[in-house]
């Protein structure tokens, strides 16, 4: 997969094209605040934001439910917030999704790094990962999967338009086939 070299210049700092696309999409959507609970693939998005869009404030939360609360406050204060979390974190945020974001019609772009989907090796990640789509459906939260790097920017922008125009949370899922390509053996 083509990547751009970060300014640090070491091989470990290659920012994959999908992460640049997500970062550019968030920027183009007007998101200047990103609240996150980290995981490995998401670190590429954070790196792309730091490199290409240093105006974007990234804020570490201790838990995804807390991140939803902070994002809601940011929106109330006039910002367009994005949330970055792993699929496991979707489980951690559900009551806040329902009783804060949906009940009050507070939008957020939610970027979900998937575990438990094809490419997974850790069984403990599988049940929550399988449930992400159905759970978001149960809450009426629209979501799409970014399957190719070239789609990343436009997908994030489309989800952001839906979110901020209609005042609802909406999600982009990042499957492992995108974020952790398997090149033989365990990924």
């Amino acid at each position, binding site marked *: 997969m083509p990547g751009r070299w970060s300014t640090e210049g070491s091989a470990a700092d290659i920012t994959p094209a999908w992460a640049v696309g997500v970062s550019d999409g968030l920027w183009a959507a007007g998101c200047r*605040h990103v*609240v996150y609970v980290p995981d490995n693939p998401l670190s590429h998005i954070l790196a792309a934001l730091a490199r290409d869009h240093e105006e974007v*404030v990234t*804020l*570490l*939360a*201790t*838990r995804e*439910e*807390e991140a*939803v*609360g*902070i*994002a*809601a*406050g*940011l*929106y*109330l*204060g*006039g*910002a367009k*917030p994005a949330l970055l979390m792993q699929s496991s974190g979707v489980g951690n945020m559900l*009551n*806040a999704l*329902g*009783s*804060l974001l949906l*009940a*009050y*019609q*507070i939008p957020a772009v939610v970027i979900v790094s998937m575990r438990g989907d094809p490419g997974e090796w850790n069984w403990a990640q599988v049940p929550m990962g399988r449930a992400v789509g159905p759970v978001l459906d149960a809450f009426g939260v629209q979501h799409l999967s970014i399957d190719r790097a070239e789609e990343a920017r436009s997908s994030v922008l489309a989800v952001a338009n839906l979110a901020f125009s209609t005042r609802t949370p909406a999600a982009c899922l990042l499957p492992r086939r995108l974020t952790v390509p398997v090149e033989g053996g365990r990924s």
Partner: protein
Amino acid sequence: MTRFEAIGIACRRLTDEPVVASLGHPAYELFAHGDRPLNFYTWGSMGLTSSIALGVALARPDRRVIALDGDGSLLMNLGTLATIGGCAPGNLVVLVFDNQAYGTTGGQPTATAGRADLEAAARAMGIERTATVRDAESLERILDESWREKGPWVIVAKVDESAPGAKPPLDCVSIKNRFMEGLRQ
């Protein structure tokens, strides 16, 4: 000092401050002291009051932002003290009404009825401006200080339970729209 009295002491200082109130009794009593557009009443998401206020404070550094939290609620989301300590917004005042009970759900004891100390938790998470107060005079004094001096502040007010006499409107979307409109002015 009851929670109703303590909330009244805070309300008398309000001018253009946005206030985020924890669901149940704190929100009810904030409303009872006088409804205003800049009151954000939560009706759910227990535990997130101070996190919501943190978000508002970060988006609007020009305003002092007040969280009216409860002991049971904050105990549900103690991690947010670490986040507040870490990003240290000078314009955030977290006022925790500690009645040592889940007041809205029937008065079951919280951990602060035992050995838990929320001010100590805040300090341990890097929040330097903290206090625990037990009477109206001390609360008046520390609130005056928190209005003057940069925060973030975490003020734990030990209070007796009071019986709320009113409830804010249930229309969440109107609460939000009014709050955002108020903040734009």
